[in-house]
């Protein structure tokens, strides 16, 4: 294996590890830091793929990822949780060891699902498609098993990271227009969600989403 392939495999393994670490976290502050690390690893991955395949538009993509996912978004989230005063509380619906076991099962499923598809792709990074699908599923699991609002948002953002990684690994990134559009959408979405959380907090005095169940017609 060439050095660049080994490095890309290493990045993929690190991304998988970060996704599991997010699943096991108890503190929201650590979740944000892990999300920043995930962005950093994605940037490094884009740079390596750009360098080894000569696709220069990936450099711009890496720059965008760095600016948005490593700096801007974690900063916004950080300020959000400080204003909401919720640095610590992460409650889960099912306990952490069971979540981990379900996570392992999801990883096995995504690996097996991705095997036939990755044989069709022509990129040097095609074997990492399984990991990308696994990251998407694990982030989805994180969204499902959390009770408070902010970890769900981080799960949503991590899912987008996974999709980005999938795009990089199978088709050398998305067209620039699509990428800029998605980045803008995600940024604006986060700002709106931030405002939304304040409203939820005002209405129920807590960010626990089970209060939303009171909104149904009785």
């Amino acid at each position: 294996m060439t050095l660049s392939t080994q490095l890309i495999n290493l990045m993929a393994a690190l991304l998988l590890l970060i996704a599991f670490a997010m699943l096991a976290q108890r503190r929201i502050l650590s979740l944000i830091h892990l999300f920043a690390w995930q962005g950093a690893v994605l940037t490094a991955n884009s740079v390596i793929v750009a360098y080894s395949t000569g696709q220069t538009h990936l450099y711009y993509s890496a720059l965008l990822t760095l600016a948005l996912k490593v700096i801007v978004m974690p900063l916004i989230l950080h300020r959000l949780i400080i204003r909401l005063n919720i640095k610590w509380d992460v409650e889960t619906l099912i306990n952490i060891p069971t979540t981990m076991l379900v996570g392992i099962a999801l990883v096995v499923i995504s690996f097996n699902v991705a095997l036939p598809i990755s044989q069709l792709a022509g990129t040097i990074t095609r074997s990492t498609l399984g990991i990308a699908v696994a990251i998407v599923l694990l982030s989805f699991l994180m969204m499902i098993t959390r009770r408070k609002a902010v970890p769900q948002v981080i799960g949503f953002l991590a899912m987008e990271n996974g999709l980005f990684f999938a795009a990089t690994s199978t088709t050398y990134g998305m067209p620039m227009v699509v990428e800029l559009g998605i980045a803008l959408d995600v940024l604006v979405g986060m700002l709106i969600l931030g405002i939304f959380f304040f409203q939820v907090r005002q209405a129920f005095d807590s960010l626990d989403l089970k209060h939303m169940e009171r909104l149904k017609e009785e």
Partner: protein
Amino acid sequence: MAEFVESFLSQLAQTVLVVLIAPLMLGWVNQCRAWLQNRSGPGLLQPYRVLHKLFHKDALLAHNASVIFRAAPYIQFGCMVLAASIVPVLGTNLAFSPAADVIALVGVFALARVFSSLAAMDVGTAFGSLGARREMLVASLSEPALLMVFFTPLLIVQSSSLSSIVDALAHRDFAIYPSLAFAAVAFIMVLLAENARIPVDNPATHLELTMIHEALILEYSARHLALIEWATAVKLTVYCAIGIALFAPWGMVEGTNWLMFPAAAGALVIKLALAGTGLAVLETVSAKMRIFRAPEFLGMAFLFAVLGMLIRQLLGA
């Protein structure tokens, strides 16, 4: 026949070496810890002095201590010496290595542990049985993790004999194997649990309710205690040697090229010193966990090991 004699001699040399330098390894770890905690330690040779003192004392046995209590230290020591003879430290030409592979190695450690737990229950005190059940609990949870850790190199090399694994891994071109990296992290966590180091158990504690391994040896004295302490030191050294053999196997001797042995011994000393320093650093920056956090810790180790195996199967790396 000459081959067999050569491999037997190389085997004997390695076993004796490991058994003799094990207290030095323990002394080095304690010394590093002392330096990190800004105090001057007791010296590198302190464990030898302790062993010497203990061997010369009279043994005090409880009235109702049975033959299991008296035999257990010898059995523990014997098992650890056997383990030291299976793990390749200087070279892979070991006469005894076909007799046991990694699974049998895990079995040897289990045998020693069961006998020490039975001996702890023998005198019939509260702390002995407390230590016995905690030790067996930590062991039951760390064995699956250890098996999964061994499984990643086994997948890569398609063999469960440690000598074959070392031979194959030492000859591969240097490449980044994320699966082996994950397995290494899991192995370090299992090493901490099995050898009763912080964060699973504090080897220097004197509070009985926080003891796991220490509680098993509360009733021992004199030569029995000396053998058990020596066996603990050998176990730590053997575990470090297993980690080195699986994850950093360069510098070992193939066959019985006697000229290469001093170089291999030098490489071994350097690697063990690094391992000891690393262990001391880990112990200094961590705090001991509550006993019921240990399952989570070991579950995390199991997870790392399984991730390593899955990444190996998917990426081939």
